[in-house]
Structures are given as structure tokens and as C-alpha cells.
């Protein structure tokens, strides 16, 4: 049992975990059993077998393949008995997962990979193609901001609107007879048998939050993420995406139980804080990659942006139309509305104005809470 493949397996598993892929010890056991069943001389088969056992998310395949290449070198030069050392991060090919990989491997060079972009702060506000790769810490939030966020979390977030499910619960005035409980009543000897009824159970409607994190929205997007975290705690499924120059899914990052940890994950995941805005392109990306996955149950989509699109509005028009058609409500939260004389005259804003089913402002904690109350009232009315 001194096969190099078996010896390297735990390292592979650990490297995967370090990059954020969840690998249980059960999976590692399955992987080792799988290795016993196949021809270890066929490297591609070994890769397929290990991947099927260890990874269950196609987005992580590339990461896995890279790690596999590094830990299972194709030339048979690996000295038996001693597993190969973990590669250093400068050996990494410039793959898309490279940054996550680099962070997981012992390395001198992570800092160098990120540092050069930090100075380009003045790119904020211009839709430059080079993203501002700063990864901001929430410690940099001003005291006032932090205080606002805390108050926001302390106040109960809005109850999510409800939708009917196809499960049933007992209800004296339900529309359907509950045969199972009727039979039970008969067996208990109740005579006459009381009619036992049931109705469709309700559950919180899903939410999808699309948060603009571009330069002009910087002050609001952080609060929005805190709100998103709090909503997720409150029950109901919530999907969170951010966008400025590209779309980032934050749902998993925000799942952490501790808000500080969640925000740390989020800050690390988003690479275009304070970048320019390409709303149309980002919504197009959302429609293409995510809509069919997260808009399946007629959710409420909340779009937090000032609508200041730098690119043309033709694409924005097409994509927002498509988005609006696929959700129950498209709610546009626009901090600029705080001004009583505001009119959605900018081209991008005009498009959103036409398609959003409701619009609110959210420039401070008070208005966010007011929004919460409105949503809650609506939720009750919908029942």
C-alpha cells in the first residue's frame, strides 16, 4: 500500500480544502477505495476517479485539475515512499482559479499578485477595463458606517413575502379534506367524524439581491450586504450578487454565521469594489449564467444601484426586460431618490424606471428600515 497515489491523496484533499472546496473524510475514503479498483498507470482515469469522489461542483473542476497536475506529476520521477512536497505558488499557471490556489499554497508571492493594483483608486468612477483589484477590509469602514450597520442588524429585518408551496398543513378552513387524519379520527371512534381539512403550506418567497459595488455606490453597498446577511438569517432563500465591472456571487460567502466573518469572505471575494459600472453587461451575465438557477420560484429581485450606466443602454434595456419578466417583483433601490427633486433622467436610470415594479430609496439606515416595513406590509397583504 505504498503506492504514491495513495500517499498523495491526503495532500490533495488538504490542498482542496485550503482553496475552499469542502472535502469530507468520507469522500477521501471513497477516493482511496476507487484507486484500488482502477489501473493506476492510466493517469486520466486516476484523475477522473479522484475528481468524481472529491469534487461535486463543476466550478471547482479547473482548480482540481490544476492541483492534480501539480501533485501527480506525469513523469514517474516521484520517489516512492515519500510523497511529493506541496508545490509553491509561483509554479502556478495563470488559471482563473489561480488566486484562490495561491492563497492556499505555501508561498511568498501572494502579496505580489495583488499589490500593484492597490494604488489605482482614482479609477473609481471611470469604467476602465482594468479593475480596481483592491480587496478592502471592513475595518476600513468609518465608525459611523459601522454604527449604522449594527443598528440595522439590531432592528428586525423585514419578514419575507410568502408563497404557496405544494405541501399541506392542517387548517380548519382549508379547501381540501385531509383523508389521513379523517381515517385516524374514525379509528379513534369519533362519531360523527369531524371533517378534517388542510391547505397549502406557505413558505418565505425567495429573494435575489443584485448589489452595485461601483465607486458611486460605495457607501451603500456595504450596508446592503449586511442587510442581505441579516435577511438570510431570517429564513427564506436569498441569493446575493455584486456587480461593478463584473458579476460576483456572494451567496456562499455570506452564509457564515458570524457577520464579521461573512463580511470578510465577501470583501475577499469581490474584486471590483469601487470600479466603474457596466450594469447592462453584468445583468446580461446574470441572465445567462444564473437566471435559470436562481429565478425558478418567482422570487423578489432587489436591484440596488444608482442606474448610472457608463456604457450604452441598448443592452441594459434588453437585459432588464428579460430580468423583469422572470421575477415576481423587480424592486429598484436607488440612493439618488433621496433628493426630492430627483428624476430618473440619466439614460440607464430611465430604463430601470420603466421596468422596476417598485422603487425605493435607501440612503441611510432609516430609509432602509422604512423599506423593510413596506416590504413586510406588502408581505401580509399578499397572503
Amino acid at each position, binding site marked *: 500500500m505504498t503506492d504514491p497515489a495513495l500517499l498523495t491523496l491526503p495532500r490533495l484533499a488538504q490542498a482542496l480544502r485550503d482553496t475552499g472546496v469542502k472535502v469530507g473524510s468520507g469522500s477521501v475514503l471513497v477516493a482511496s477505495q476507487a484507486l484500488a479498483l482502477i489501473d493506476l498507470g492510466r493517469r486520466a482515469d486516476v484523475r*477522473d476517479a479522484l475528481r468524481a469522489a472529491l469534487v461535486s461542483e463543476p466550478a471547482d473542476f479547473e482548480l482540481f485539475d490544476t492541483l492534480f497536475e501539480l501533485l501527480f506529476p506525469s513523469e514517474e520521477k516521484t520517489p516512492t515512499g515519500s510523497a511529493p512536497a506541496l508545490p509553491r505558488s509561483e509554479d502556478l499557471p495563470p488559471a482563473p482559479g489561480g488566486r484562490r490556489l495561491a492563497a492556499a499554497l505555501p508561498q511568498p508571492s501572494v502579496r505580489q499578485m495583488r499589490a500593484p493594483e492597490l494604488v489605482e483608486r482614482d479609477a473609481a468612477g471611470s469604467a476602465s477595463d482594468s479593475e480596481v483589484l483592491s480587496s478592502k477590509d471592513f475595518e476600513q469602514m468609518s465608525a459611523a458606517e459601522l454604527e449604522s450597520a449594527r443598528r440595522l442588524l439590531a432592528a428586525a429585518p423585514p419578514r419575507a413575502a410568502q408563497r404557496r408551496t405544494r405541501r399541506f398543513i392542517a387548517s380548519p378552513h382549508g379547501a381540501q379534506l385531509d383523508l389521513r387524519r379523517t381515517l385516524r379520527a374514525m379509528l379513534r*371512534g369519533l362519531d360523527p367524524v369531524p371533517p378534517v381539512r388542510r391547505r397549502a403550506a406557505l413558505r418565505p418567497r425567495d429573494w435575489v439581491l443584485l448589489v452595485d459595488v461601483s465607486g458611486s455606490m460605495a457607501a451603500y453597498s456595504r450596508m446592503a450586504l449586511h442587510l442581505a446577511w441579516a435577511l438570510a438569517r431570517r429564513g427564506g432563500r436569498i441569493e446575493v450578487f455584486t456587480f461593478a465591472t463584473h458579476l460576483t456571487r456572494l451567496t456562499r460567502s455570506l452564509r457564515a454565521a458570524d457577520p464579521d466573518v461573512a463580511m470578510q469572505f465577501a470583501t475577499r471575494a469581490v474584486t471590483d469594489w469601487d470600479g466603474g459600472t457596466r450594469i447592462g453587461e453584468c445583468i446580461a451575465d446574470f441572465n*445567462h449564467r444564473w437566471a435559470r438557477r436562481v429565478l425558478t420560484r418567482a422570487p423578489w429581485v432587489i436591484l440596488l444601484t444608482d442606474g448610472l450606466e457608463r456604457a450604452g443602454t441598448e443592452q441594459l434595456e434588453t437585459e432588464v426586460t428579460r430580468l423583469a419578466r422572470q421575477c415576481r417583483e423587480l424592486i429598484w433601490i436607488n440612493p439618488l431618490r433621496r433628493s426630492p427633486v430627483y428624476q430618473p433622467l440619466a439614460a440607464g436610470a430611465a430604463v430601470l424606471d420603466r421596468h422596476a415594479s417598485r422603487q425605493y430609496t435607501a440612503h441611510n439606515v432609516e430609509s432602509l428600515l422604512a423599506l423593510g416595513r413596506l416590504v413586510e406590509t406588502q408581505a401580509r397583504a399578499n397572503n
Partner: protein
Amino acid sequence: MPVQSPTRISPAPTSIEETEALLRSQQYLADRTLSVVLFLALKLGRPLFLEGEAGTGKTEIARALAAGLGRDLIRLQCYEGLDASAALYEWNYLRQILELRVAEAASGTDRSKAALKDAIFSPEFLIKRPLLQALEPHAKGPPVLLIDEIDRADEPFEAFLLEILADYQVTIPELGTVRAAQPPIVILTSNRTREVHDALKRRCLYHWVGYPDAVRELEILAARAPEAGSALSLEIVRFVQGLRQRRLQKPPGVAESIEWARAIVALGQHALTPQLMQETLGVLLKYEEDIAAVRANLPGVTAPGT
């Protein structure tokens, strides 16, 4: 409970090559990765989790496997709100209630309550749903249990399924425990309209079913729609592969390619003309926007590389 009948189990494949040949015998052309994973799933007795876009042949894998092994295929189509009574078993309450009433009317003096209860909670009144069927003994050997589109079911059902997959047994309070002597071959599919919980995925071997490359798709067409002929098939594959490079709401899957080939043959045609494509695009594309976009530049959609 049905009487255990002597079972003769069809031989399971003993190598990756045999697995591939088994699927091929059922006109299913699997790539090497799928063969490896399927072989391991059979060998290790693990459920196989197949994820991928609609129309890439996930359900077909289960069918081909069942047919190739000569086993029964038991299919559980998932939907939101699917629960134990629809997936596992349910008592036929209506019949039970009737039976109770009849018994009460017939015997002036009460038959003993317990006897009556036993009578109506007998297998005769049990409606067996797919999961229970899959746990029962089968003459042809353990069946293939296809749990189709698990992403449509909701989280509570996933948790329930985890429990079943953990020990392949269920307890019906009134009747006792049903345990599979040999666990069924379990295949789960998902179109990825939502994320299935990690806990369930981790219990399975995972395989992502992607679109085939041009060469394989051509082979698939030759196997599944031979009437189209090689020239037409080639044209179809080129066009469809080109479409998948574009940003469509729903790119056509292999199922659509096969369907399209058959449709064109049914129209008595043997070559793709712009006119014919105009008329039959609805077989390939299911969104009005996609059809409009493709129609707008019909001659220019062929992939540059193929």
C-alpha cells in the same frame, strides 16, 4: 410483502472498458470519464450524481444502464412538494374509510377494534411508490433507481432521501421494516436549477455531463438517428456546435440535435437550406429571443473551428 423470489443477477461490468461497451450496446456513447465514474459507482455501490444542462442525456444513462444490465428501471420524477407519501408509500385512505364503514354496517355487534385495524392496515391497502418498490426484491436483480431532477424537489425531501440512501431501509409503522437485500443502483440527476445540498452530493460520486464534442455528437447521431445519413448529420452537428458557442438563453442539447435530425428527415429533406432552417428552428431553440437572434444571421452561425 411480496415473496422473495430466486434472483439471478446480470453480471455487472468488471472493467471500465466493459462499462463503456455495456452503454454502447444500448446506443449510448459514453466518454471515458463517464465510463470510469459509472464503473466505480457500480463497484463501490455508491449513488451516482449526474449534473448538467437539460438535454445532455442524463436520464438516458440510467435507461441504458438498466436495459444493458437487464434490470428494472424505477423512476422517481421529482417536483416541488414531493413528500414521503408520493415517493415512498401511502395508505389508500379512501378504500380504508370505505372498508371501515362497510364493516360497521355489516356487523351489528362490533368486530374487535384491533382486528379491524389490522385488516385495513394490510398490504392490500398499501400504495407502493418508487422508493419502496426499489427496496423490494426484484426477480432480475437489484433495480436501477432513477431519481430524476432532484433539483426540483425541495430541501426537506433531500434530507429524507439522505436517510433512505444511508441504509436502504424504511419502516412502515403498521407493517414493519422493509430492507433491500441488495441495494438498488441509484442514479440521481439534476438540471442545476438550484444547488443541491452538499451532504447529498457528498454521499454520491459526482459527474458533470457536458455537451459532446463534434466527433462524438456525430457518432451519437449515427447511432440514434441513422436515417439522417452522414452528410446531413455533419451539417447538423456543425450548426448545433456553432450555436453552443453563442450566448443563448438555452443552447440546444444533444436531445435537440437528434430531434432536429429526425424532424428534417420526417419532412423528406436531406440537406440544410436556409428556408428549412427557418421553418424548423423551433425544434432546436425554445426561447423566442434565441430564435430571433439566430434567425437574424442564419448563414453565419457555423462555428469557425469545425
